[in-house]
């Protein structure tokens, strides 16, 4: 294990690099921060788009219309049968009168046209809301198949076109996010790794001399790894800070923009620290295995 003087030296050296290589370190943090900012932005856009899609999904529901002339007892016994169907969250009875009132409300100023009708043409129905897990085409079709065979049911309506479109958009969005996310992630890792390599190249001679005088690889490596971690930390904070600022600015104008939770921010910054650490570790290998060129 290291002795106290060595520990003090290693800690001091971990920060000394920032002072010695102000420009390279500054540029490294800026480049890392920019790459991470792009990554974080994409993650945030994905989160917000996902949130919007989820909100849109909440609008998926079903309307079960009943035949005319059913007696109240028969209508009433349908409700418990509907509630127990997997995927159904709530069941609301809509009488023909309520349906007409809702329809009138929907027509607004044109509602007077309904006064020309002799009788109420709207049938009684049940409005079904669905559990979040059932808000997809497959589940909706399964529920439809189960109810459609009931004799009391005349028609079942659900916004199939909307669900189809939503499903399709969700799939495309997920694929696009995955592809772009992967590309941005690879680009970020590449940029960070190369930036760290440049820093290392500037230190190659120092590393060679350290090896020459008998320093072990671990002893040489520790300050650089710590430096990489600190760079990752600062770059992560920079990216989050800029994104937070942009989020605050946009929220003022757009409203409802969701930002990372405190846990997600900590997770992201930790990810940046690990990225800085692994970048330094990988970049150092080359110089530690090089010969001393005596």
């Amino acid at each position, binding site marked *: 294990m290291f*002795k106290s*003087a*060595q520990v003090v030296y290693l800690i001091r050296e971990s920060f000394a690099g920032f002072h*010695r290589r102000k420009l390279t370190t500054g540029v490294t943090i800026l480049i890392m921060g920019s790459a991470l900012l792009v990554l974080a932005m994409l993650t945030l856009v994905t989160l917000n788009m996902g949130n919007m899609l989820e909100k849109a999904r909440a609008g998926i529901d079903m309307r079960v219309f009943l035949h005319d002339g059913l007696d109240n007892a028969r209508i009433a016994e349908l409700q418990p049968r509907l509630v127990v169907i997997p995927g159904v969250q709530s069941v609301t009875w809509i009488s023909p009168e309520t349906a007409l009132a809702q329809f009138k409300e929907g027509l607004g100023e044109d509602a007077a046209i309904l006064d020309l009708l002799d009788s109420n043409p709207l049938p009684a129905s049940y409005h079904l809301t669905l559990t979040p897990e059932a808000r997809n085409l497959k589940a909706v079709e399964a529920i439809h198949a189960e109810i459609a065979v009931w004799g009391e049911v005349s028609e079942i309506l659900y916004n199939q076109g909307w669900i189809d479109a939503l499903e399709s958009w969700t799939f495309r969005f997920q694929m696009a996010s995955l592809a772009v996310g992967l590309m941005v992630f690879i680009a970020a890792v590449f940029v960070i790794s190369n930036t760290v390599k440049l820093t290392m190249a500037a230190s190659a001679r*120092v590393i060679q001399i350290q090896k*020459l005088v*008998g320093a*072990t690889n671990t002893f040489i490596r520790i300050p650089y790894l710590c430096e990489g971690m600190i760079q990752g930390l600062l770059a992560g904070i920079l990216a989050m800070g800029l994104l937070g600022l942009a989020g605050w600015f946009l929220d003022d104008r757009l409203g409802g923009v969701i930002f990372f939770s405190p846990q997600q921010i900590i997770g992201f910054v930790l990810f940046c620290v690990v990225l800085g650490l692994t970048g330094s570790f990988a970049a150092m290998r080359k110089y530690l295995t090089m010969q*001393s060129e005596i």
Partner: protein
Amino acid sequence: MKSSNTRPDQFSEGPLDSRTVIGFYHVDLAYDDQKAIDNISFTVANGEFLCLTGPSGAGKSSILRLIAMDAFPTKGEVMVRGMLSSKMSRRKVPQLRREIGFVFQDFRLLEDRSVQDNISFVQLVVGISHAQIVKNNMRVLTQVGLYDKRHRLPRQLSGGEQQRVAIARAMVSSPKILLADEPTGNLDPVNAQEIIDLLFRINDAGTSVVFSTHDHGIVKSFGQRVIVINEGRIESDEKRRVPVNRKANLADKMYIAAARKERLNV
């Protein structure tokens, strides 16, 4: 790595006793099939001053690399302080390097650290306490006459001063062997002579010194053992009984005297 003080059995030729600190036994070294060292055998005794000479590319630096175990023989065996190259693991190399001091033509100082920090680093590597490091720095920097300049960066020193820092760094851990690769190559005769004098003083204190140079003027001034290397082979290995001139030849002496006078005037 098992260290051994005995010569490997398969290399039974050549003198070897308990005073041997470096042994080369039928050593070949090739870089990409290009032979740099060809069947070289010699030993260096404890406290010996050996001068390796020969033209550029003769293999002098390769011999130093083999001693530092920065390169390993393609054939034969190198023994340094009882450690055999064939049984040396890379993890043990730093341990060996701590017993060897290095001085180079281009000084190899940590440019972004002060004189003091350059010397401290070698001691930190082996875990010497801070208080002891301060004492050692004072001792070696006083010896090389640079204590007053301990806070300066290498680039703020002259070539001769930088080389003295390199020597102080090499000596601070009291190594058993000092490898000097063309240490006077970048220096004017005054500074070169000072460095050679310093190396002799180090040798007088008991450290084995392997000094490599292609400068015939310096070689002639040695009253020590000189091995001449050419095309990777030993051309001659002789120990001079009567020193020609341990200090400097006449031309250098005149230059040194003039330069010293000039310095005083400045």
